[in-house]
Structure formats: structure tokens, C-alpha cells
């Protein structure tokens, strides 16, 4: 039972990285947009899905709290700085996307030509540029933060038998930094693939293709740093299982690069989605049977079974999840279906 819930937790977090990942990737690519009409197009592409994407994170943490309370406290507080960083990024993006256009009247929103800062409309357009910078910064912070969290899980934390994690400096390592940068590049490629799929024109496919080598280089660097780090070598329980997943990650990126070059954004997006889901599976499988590996006391490492809530709680949650998870999924699928396809002049504009 605990294993199934661990899988479900991984599934929700992976779905968050895939779906929230293209929010943040698109957010990062706002930096490449030439004018406000371009930025508007990017946000309209994300449009209807935005609110439904990051709730996967909320649900994942809910599952973490309900089904793995022990892990929840120790994981979040054990990786405090990385989680706080990611959280700050998530908050900024959440607020900024929803609020960026709210002080503008529709006339200015649609035309977005008022650049003169002396008029009220001009000032508000400038105000929106500030929100846009917040989206870019927040997206970067969220991607870096979650990358560092995954890196932190792979290198273990100084967890003591009484359940407390010593200090916070342990997270600051070259490996965690490399993981953070790797996730940032993955998210950027993923965002470009999403925009190539949703927007007319080939600009984003080109950006995505150019980003693929960077992502591959980041993965290579992270792998090298990880192999050199004794903490990572000790924490990884099953290197044999990790290697195929790492190969899958590289293969997905290569496929994505090729598909974007050949004008197949659908395949490209599917491949980058795989690339964002694989790191979760990698962390989960590599440290199995542990959910949180201790670097100071092997006996203090938290196994998945120990981390799980006690029997009655899991049974209750399972009874609820059986009807609920398919229902949640079907509402999400409904949203994807209603707003499928490439956006055009008739797409509703709100953000």
C-alpha cells in the first residue's frame, strides 16, 4: 500500500514538473519576446491551463502530508533553503501571471501600443513590464529551486535518528547547484516545445532546438559532479536502475531536438514531457527503498514504508483516491480538450 502511494506521490510531482514546467519555461522565454504583443501571445498560449497546472504541486504536497507525514516534515525542513527558494518562485509566478494585465483597460490590453510613460495608460503598461520581469525571475527561481530539491534528495541529508536534520548548509554543494541548473535548462527546452506547439511561427521551435545542447551539457556536467561526489555515491542505492533512466532522459532530449528541427512540435513536446518526468523516477528509483537518505547515520535513513502514515489513514485515503483520482484527471483532460490546438486571433485573452 505504501508503495502504491509513493508511486502516486511521484506521479503527481512528475505531473507538476511536466505541466508547471511549461508554465515556467514559457515564463523564462518571455525574456526572449520582442514586444508586448509577443509576451501577450506567450501568456495566452499558457492561458486556460495555468491555474490547473500548479495545483498538481498542491496535490502532491497534500499527498505527502496525508500519506507520508513523517517524510513531509523531514523532507521539507531538511531541504529548507531549496524548498523556500522554489516556493518563493512559485508564489511570484502565480501572482504575477494573474495580475499583470489587471490594471489595464481592454483597449490598452489588446493594442498594447501605449509606450509613453507620461500617460496613465503608459505607466500601467510599464507596470506590466515589471510584472513580466517578476514572471521571468520567478520562473527561474522555481526551476532552480526544484532542481536543488531533487539534487538534495539524491545526495541525502544529515538526518539523525530522532528525526531532526542538522543545519541547512549541507544542501549547498556543487551537485545541488548542477541539478538546479539542469532543471532550469530542461524547463526552458520544455517551454519552447510547448510554445512551438501552441503558437504560430517557427521561432520557438528554433529556440528549443538551440537549447537542447545546453540541456545535454548540463546533464553531462551533473552526472560527472555526481559521480565525483562521495555523498551521491553513498546515497544512491541502485546505480544499475539509475543508468537506464539517465539514458532515457538523454534520448528524450535528442528526440525533442530532432522533432523540433523537423517541424514536429507535438513529438517534441511529448519528448520534453518525458524528460521532465524522468528525473522524479530517477530520484525515486535510485534511492529506493529509502525515501530520504541520511548522510550521518545509515540507520536513520527513512524508508518508504517507515515514512508512510499508519494503516487506517492509508486505507481511508485509498478509498477516497479510487474514485477521486480518475475524476481529477478527467477534469484536467476536459480542460486540455476544450482548449486544444494552436491559438489564433479568436483565442480568449485574459492574462
Amino acid at each position, binding site marked *: 500500500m505504501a508503495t502504491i502511494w509513493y508511486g502516486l506521490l511521484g506521479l503527481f510531482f512528475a505531473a507538476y514538473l511536466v505541466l508547471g514546467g511549461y508554465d515556467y519555461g514559457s515564463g523564462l522565454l518571455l525574456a526572449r519576446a520582442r514586444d508586448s504583443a509577443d509576451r501577450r501571445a506567450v501568456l495566452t498560449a499558457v492561458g486556460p491551463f495555468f491555474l490547473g497546472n500548479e495545483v498538481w504541486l498542491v496535490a502532491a504536497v*497534500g499527498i505527502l502530508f496525508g500519506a507520508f*507525514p513523517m517524510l513531509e516534515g523531514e523532507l*521539507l525542513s531538511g531541504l529548507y533553503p531549496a524548498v523556500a527558494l522554489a516556493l518563493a518562485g512559485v*508564489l511570484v509566478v502565480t*501572482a504575477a501571471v494573474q495580475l499583470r494585465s489587471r490594471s*489595464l483597460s481592454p483597449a490598452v490590453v489588446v493594442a498594447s501600443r501605449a509606450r509613453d510613460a507620461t500617460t496613465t495608460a503608459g505607466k500601467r503598461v510599464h507596470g506590466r513590464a515589471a510584472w513580466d520581469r517578476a514572471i521571468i525571475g520567478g520562473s527561474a527561481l522555481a526551476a532552480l529551486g526544484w532542481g536543488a530539491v531533487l539534487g538534495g534528495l539524491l545526495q541525502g541529508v544529515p538526518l539523525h535518528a530522532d528525526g531532526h536534520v542538522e543545519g541547512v548548509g549541507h544542501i549547498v554543494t556543487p551537485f545541488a547547484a548542477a541539478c538546479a541548473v539542469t532543471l532550469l535548462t530542461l524547463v526552458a527546452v520544455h517551454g519552447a516545445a510547448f510554445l512551438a506547439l501552441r503558437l504560430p511561427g517557427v521561432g520557438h521551435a528554433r529556440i528549443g532546438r538551440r537549447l537542447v545542447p545546453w540541456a545535454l551539457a548540463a546533464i553531462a556536467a551533473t552526472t560527472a559532479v555526481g559521480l565525483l561526489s562521495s555523498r551521491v555515491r553513498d546515497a544512491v542505492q541502485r546505480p544499475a536502475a539509475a543508468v537506464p533512466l539517465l539514458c532515457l532522459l538523454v534520448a528524450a532530449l535528442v528526440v525533442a531536438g530532432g522533432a523540433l528541427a523537423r517541424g514536429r512540435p507535438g513529438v517534441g513536446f511529448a519528448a520534453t514531457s518525458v524528460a521532465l518526468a524522468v528525473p522524479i523516477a530517477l530520484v525515486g528509483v535510485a534511492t529506493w527503498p529509502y525515501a530520504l537518505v541520511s548522510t550521518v547515520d545509515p540507520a536513520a535513513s527513512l524508508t518508504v514504508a517507515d515514512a508512510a502514515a499508519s494503516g487506517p489513514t492509508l486505507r481511508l485515503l485509498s478509498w477516497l483516491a479510487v474514485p477521486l483520482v480518475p475524476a*481529477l484527471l478527467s*477534469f484536467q483532460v476536459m480542460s486540455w480538450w*476544450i482548449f486544444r490546438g494552436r491559438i489564433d486571433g479568436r483565442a480568449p485573452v*485574459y492574462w
Partner: protein
Amino acid sequence: MDPLLLARLQFATTTSIHFLFVLVTLGLVTLLVYLQTAWFLTRKPVYERLTRFWGTFYLVNYALGITTGIVMEFQFGLNWSGLSRYVGNVFGAPLAIETLVAFFLESTLLGMWIFGWHRLRRGAHLALLYGVAITAYASAFWILVANSWLQHPVGYEAREGIAHLTDFGALLTNQAFGMAFGHVVSAALTTGGFLVAGISAWQLIRRAPDYEAFRKSLRIGVVTASIGTSLVMGFGFAQFGYLGTIQPTKFGNDEDKAAAAADFAARFGGSPADYLPPTWVGAPLGFMILIAFTLMWVWVFIPFFYRDWIIRLKLPLYLLLIATPLPFVAAILGWLFREVGRQPFVVYGLLRTEDAVTDTSGAVMLTSFVGFTVLLLGLAVADWVLLARVAHRGTADPALGRRPDEPLPEPADRPEPALA
């Protein structure tokens, strides 16, 4: 600095900000359901204008509700890892259910509602809003189930210091839950009602062009506020009946208080005086009741609907305008009493607050507190400014629910008037 104090300050700050936004979310979504249903049934354009105007207001408010809500969820793990360690088996379940049943669905449906305008059939679009409203209430329901368990733990057994769930039904029939849920929901209705009435009054005072719409929403606001205040007081006073029994140190008579404190001291160590809440905790309760008795008079305005005297006399409009912030103040005061009154326990009589806080240094906690407080306060202030602008702009063509192919109402480059 003391990590415990900082963690408590951070929780109080985040929750207060969160509470201010979710009250409006819950209250306004109820009124939106009414407005859009009326539009669906009567097809009168005034209801469309009102749905779009109050819908925009609701969404700007929702942005911060969800942002602060995410912080709340993470804060349990970041700052209060003892809570998940000792009572997570029981306390975690309603929170997990809340995220899955309510938060998740609410946002997914809301995204479809915002962008589904003119794309979905009118009935399907309305159904989405009903879904948003139901999940919003479900969210309040499960959060209050979780909070009530902290107030009055039931349905568990403690083995080796860790609480295990034995009877989930007991969490739902918890004495601390029912009336409190009614109280919070009707407080949200009151807040929403006064907010709608206050903003409509402001628009009518400044003789906004859309008289028809704001006349209507003024009436809706006043009626909602009247119903809300009666309910909120009923559910509030009903809690006095049992509060002294389940939480003697919060609301018992002096004898019960002393007995409970002595009992806690015997079980957890220390002196009985350590187990009494701060002496000032009665003050927020008193002020909240005072505000409620003031706001209760709102029903007096209902007869003045006759021949629009409520508008023509002007005075009621000014009174409604100045009453707008009062429900927010009352809500924070009531929350302070409920949460501070159970100190020094985080789970009443079971887990002390100091045993639940994460074992980390003061510097980490201080950085987190200052960082997140500055970030959330900055976003909240920005949001309030935007809400004021939305309220000020009136019903003229909000972005929400525009036809994508509709021609623009004015030349795009024309600068807006300074105050519009």
C-alpha cells in the same frame, strides 16, 4: 532569535493575510453564482455586466488567495515538522483531502471558467462556476475539520507518542467543528455582502454611469450582509455553549481553568501558569462582538429599498462605504481568539506548540519569516491596489468575458483619463 516565536509569528502573518483573501473568495463566489444564474435565466444584460465586473474582482482577489494558500501548505512541513511527525497520521488526512477534493478542482474549473466564455455553451459555463463554488465550500469544510481537530482532538489513539487514526467519522462530528464551520462560512458571506454593498455605494456616490447595475448589486449586497450577520452571530454565540467544556483554559470559569491547567502541568511538566493563554486573549473576542453588534444594524436599510431611498438619502451609502473594512477586522479578531486561546498547545491537550516547531536555527527561521512576509505583504498590497482600480473602473468592458472578435470600444492609443 527564538525560532519558536519566529515560526509562530510567520504562521500568524501568513494565515492572517490568507484569511483576508479567502473570506472574499468564499463570499463573492456565492454572489457570483447568484448573478450568473440570474443572467442565465433572464438573459438581462445587466446581469452579464455584473457577472463580468464582480468576476474580475473575484479573480484579482483569488490570485492572492491561492498564492498565500500554497505558502500555508508548505509552512507545516518547513516550520512545524513536529506536527507532521506526531499527529500527521490524523491531521494530515483532512488536509490531503482538501488539496485533492477542493483546491485542485477549484483551480482547474476556474481556469476553464475564465477562458470558457463564448467557447462553451452557457449552461456548461454556468455549471463550471457552480463547481468552483462547491469546491470553495468543500475547501473551507476540510480546513475547518483539520483546524477543529487541533482545537479538540478526537478519533485517535496515541501509541509511543504518535497519534494514529481510529475513527475518521469522529473528526466530522467533532464538537469543535460544526458551529465553527457555520460561523466561518457566514462570516465570509457577511464580508462579501458588505464588500459588494460598499463598492456599489461608492460607485453610486460618485454617480457612476452604470446606475442600473450598481443599484442592483447594492441591494444584493445589503440583503446578503443582513443574512450573513444574523447567521454569523448565531453560529458564534452557539459556540459559547460548549467551548468551556472542550477548552477550559480558553473559555472555562476560573475553577475549571485552574483545574485544567493543574492537570496539564502534571502531564507535561512545568507550573500550571504555563498552561494558560495570554491574559489579553479576551480582548479580540470582545471587540469582535462589538463589531458584530454594529454591523447587525444593516438590515435597517432594507426598508429603504422602497423608491430607492437608500440611494437618494445618500447617508446609507456613506455608512455602507465605511462599514466595508469592519468584517475583515472582526474576522482577524475572531481568529486570534480561536488560535491564541488554545496556547501553549498546537493540538489542545496533546502536543505543545514548542514540541511541534522544526528544530532549526533562529537565523534560518528569521530569514524565512522576513523573506516570506515581505514577499506576501508586497503582493497583497499590489493586489489591493489592483482591486481598488478594478472597483473604481466600474462595469465598462472588463477583459473577463470579452468576445475575442468584438471591436474595441475606443481608439486604442487614446490615453485614459487620469482617474478612470
